[in-house]
């Protein structure tokens, strides 16, 4: 009898103590996220879309990542390997990660170096269609030295070795789950790709692609007191304005992502008092992509390719310089972006170390001077007010994606360029088509069948080496490479390629910065790109949501384990 009651008491105590431990994790109940572009897959290696990599970042984690200031922070490892602490070899060909002991997957099994090795094999498998392959450039081998140590060996000295396993777009997959999904089988593993097991604070309970994702707190998460929320719903669909309204005015959702709408509207909605608008600046720049090749439809398949020849007038630096000079970037930033935009003349405006000061004169609009420059260069106004020279009329087709802010920018730019005696025709393409990358559509940004295109681009992490490589000759989209590559202006310059090459062999940070600045200046001064606005990310959060540290260098949900609700 006594034994029985003692046992019962023991069980009761045990239950209570378990409950107490659980009470902390998930104490804040339910979190509602709204991503108006719905995630379609939860395996970031099979998707380049930010919506997908962000959604999966609640489940999967990398070894290290960037915080909101762009600083590397250790995540699943004890420290960031450097040359000083011996983690990076002196010849810069290897990096050794030391994993934090005691980590578990969301099914309770142990997280080991084998999983890391497997992830590298998964992404580097040639038939797997890995979208994050660039993270693994120049990787020779990845070996597990023991259960908790991983060594990455590069084929050549890698001055910036923080590519593989760093950032939300290069997380670790579980070997046990994905072992049959390597190579050509990767896209067919729907069950795995829709519900990956991870080390992150949440695990998938249900996922309807392109619609809604529901998650619950991961019971094996390393910090017993986290995450603060027990369950999460990530709803997709709708548009940016509706998403902003849902957080700021109606309070239906706690967090909404990517709210590129008119700032005056956003301010109006914020008066609803349910939430607030938050911004963070990365390196995103809204820029014009000047077409340096000829987009004339008469050229057929050679349209907008190097083979089709140079552009009739945009290769004249005087023309591109005056185009840039006629733009009032301050107005563009104010009208389109409000607090989330700053005028810029650089393609690479951040981090501060990489920011060039050589182009800042473009910040001041000077239409008379631009007119003077065109006059001097022999571009004279005809009877219709449009300038021409040797039979070439300055008539520009200016194309971008359908988006209220971009159409405003187009209208403003057109009004300024018209004052220069340049004819401007505006065209906008549905975003799903423009950014869709379909080979058969003539309207994608890569095909660039226009004189000037406009969109935003940026890079993840804080090192611009790969990003600056985008404008080397090899990166020019053309029919031969299925229109892949980010060199949209078709800028091909041997000096630029040499600088890019040199950067990949330079280790000293200051020297790397100097190279990046030189490359930035070359792009801007040769008129390949006309940078407009340094854009911040805009999101909205409910007023009672705590712990949000908005991050432009990584996933916005990078620290979701710390989020909670103020009482």
């Amino acid at each position, binding site marked *: 009898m006594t034994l029985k009651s003692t046992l019962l008491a023991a069980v009761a105590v045990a239950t209570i103590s378990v409950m107490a431990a659980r009470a902390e994790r998930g104490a804040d109940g339910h979190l509602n996220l709204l991503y108006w572009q719905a995630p379609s897959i939860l395996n970031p290696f099979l998707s380049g879309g930010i919506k997908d990599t962000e959604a999966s970042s609640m489940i999967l984690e990398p070894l290290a990542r960037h915080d909101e200031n762009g600083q590397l922070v250790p995540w699943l490892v004890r420290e960031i390997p450097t040359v000083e602490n011996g983690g990076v070899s002196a010849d810069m060909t290897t990096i050794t990660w030391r994993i934090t002991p005691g980590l578990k997957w969301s099914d309770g099994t142990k997280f080991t170096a084998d999983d890391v090795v497997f992830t590298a094999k998964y992404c580097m498998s040639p038939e797997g269609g890995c979208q994050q392959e660039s993270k693994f450039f120049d990787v020779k081998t990845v070996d597990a030295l023991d259960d908790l140590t991983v060594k990455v060996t590069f084929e050549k000295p890698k001055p910036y070795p923080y590519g593989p396993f760093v950032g939300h777009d290069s997380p670790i997959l579980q070997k046990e789950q994905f072992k049959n999904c390597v190579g050509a089988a990767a896209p067919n593993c729907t069950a795995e790709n829709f519900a990956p097991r991870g080390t992150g604070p949440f695990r998938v309970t249900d996922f309807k692609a392109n619609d809604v994702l529901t998650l619950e707190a991961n019971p094996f998460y390393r910090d017993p007191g986290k995450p603060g929320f027990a369950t999460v719903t990530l709803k997709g669909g709708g548009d940016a*304005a509706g998403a902003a309204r849902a957080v700021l005015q109606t309070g239906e959702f706690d967090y909404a992502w990517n709210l590129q*709408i*008119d700032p*005056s*509207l956003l301010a*109006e*909605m914020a008066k609803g008092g349910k939430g607030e608008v938050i911004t963070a600046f990365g390196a995103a720049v809204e820029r014009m992509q000047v077409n340096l090749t000829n987009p004339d*439809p008469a050229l057929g398949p050679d349209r907008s390719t190097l083979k089709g020849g140079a552009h009739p007038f945009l290769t004249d630096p005087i023309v591109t310089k005056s185009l840039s000079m006629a733009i009032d970037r301050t*107005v563009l930033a104010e*009208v389109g972006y409000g607090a989330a935009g700053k005028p810029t003349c650089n393609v690479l405006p951040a981090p501060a170390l990489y920011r060039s000061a050589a182009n800042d004169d473009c910040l001041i609009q000077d239409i008379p001077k631009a007119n003077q420059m065109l006059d001097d260069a022999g571009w004279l106004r005809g009877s219709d007010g449009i300038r021409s020279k040797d039979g070439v009329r300055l008539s520009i087709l200016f194309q971008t994606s*359908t988006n*209220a802010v971009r*159409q*405003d920018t*187009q*209208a*403003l730019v*057109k*009004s300024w360029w018209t004052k220069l005696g340049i004819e401007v*025709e*505006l*065209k*906008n393409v*549905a975003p799903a088509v423009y950014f869709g990358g379909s080979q058969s*559509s*003539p*309207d994608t940004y890569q095909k660039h*069948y226009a004189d000037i295109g406009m969109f935003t681009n940026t890079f993840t992490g804080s090192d611009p080496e790969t990003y600056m490589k985008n404008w080397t000759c090899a990166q020019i989209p053309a029919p031969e490479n299925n229109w892949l590559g980010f060199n949209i202006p078709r800028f091909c310059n041997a000096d630029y390629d040499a600088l890019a090459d040199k950067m990949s062999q330079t280790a000293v940070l200051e020297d790397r910065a100097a190279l990046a600045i030189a490359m930035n200046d070359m792009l801007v001064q040769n008129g390949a790109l006309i940078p407009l606005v340094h854009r911040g990310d805009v999101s909205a959060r409910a007023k009672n949501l705590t712990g949000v540290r908005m991050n432009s260098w990584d996933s916005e949900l990078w620290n979701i384990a710390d989020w909670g609700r103020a009482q």
Partner: protein
Amino acid sequence: MRKASPLAHRSRPHHVWARFRRHKMAYLGLWFLLLVTILTLLGPMIWTLDPTTLDIAAKHQGPSLRHPMGTDQLGRDLFAAMMIGGRTSLMVGFMAMFLSLVLGTCVGMIAAVFKPLDGPLMRLTDLFLALPMLPLLLVVIMLWRDSLRTAFGPESGVFILVVCVISITSWMQTARIVRGEVLALKEREFILAAISLGAGPRHLIWQHILPNVLSPIFVSATLGFASAILTESALSFLGLGFPSDFPTWGRLLFDGTNYMTLTPARVIWPGLALSLTVLSVNYIGDGLRDAMDPRADTQ
């Protein structure tokens, strides 16, 4: 049939007009449509503000003497944009209506009069009816926008494309109605009489059949006009169709929806113009049908 009521002293058009005037809503609608048409044609000459002139300092303004309908997010005058935009919208409506009417009447008439062609033509009509409109429009616009743009310039190129596309996808109703009416007419005594007197098909169509199917044609024309305006606005609403700085009512409505809470005038005016125009055109069709109904003579 044209001389069906020998007691009528007035000519038929006169007669129809007299009866049309008795339909109050149709009469009102006609005046409204006239007013809108005159306003869009002559208005921009009096109200000389250019709808594309930007004035950032005057953005998001409510109605004032300077801007009777307020301004948009870039300080463009909404009143000027409404008039210029109405011009395009009405033009698209009239042109597309006219084209689809001609096409539909021809197909319906030929199918009904020439028996061997009836089957193939009606199956063609069914085929077009079965095509999903919007996706088809998207594909057509994507395929031909560039070539038309280079041939006719950005605005007229898109205008031609939009008008053609709308009329090609909206003639089927007219064709079916006309065919049905003509088939019924063919069995009437006066037609049989004309045939037995030796009338050829051309004479038969022009002198006897066409005048008698005019009223359903007019009615379907008004409906077609309304749906053409709406289709154009749907295209603009989707960001297709005309360039973004080229106002049409549909585009103004589309741009305005985002600012609905800030400046409601931006959706109210284009929305009102669209719905009232479409409504009045529908009433006109209604009135015309009543007025042209031959049986009304014998009341």
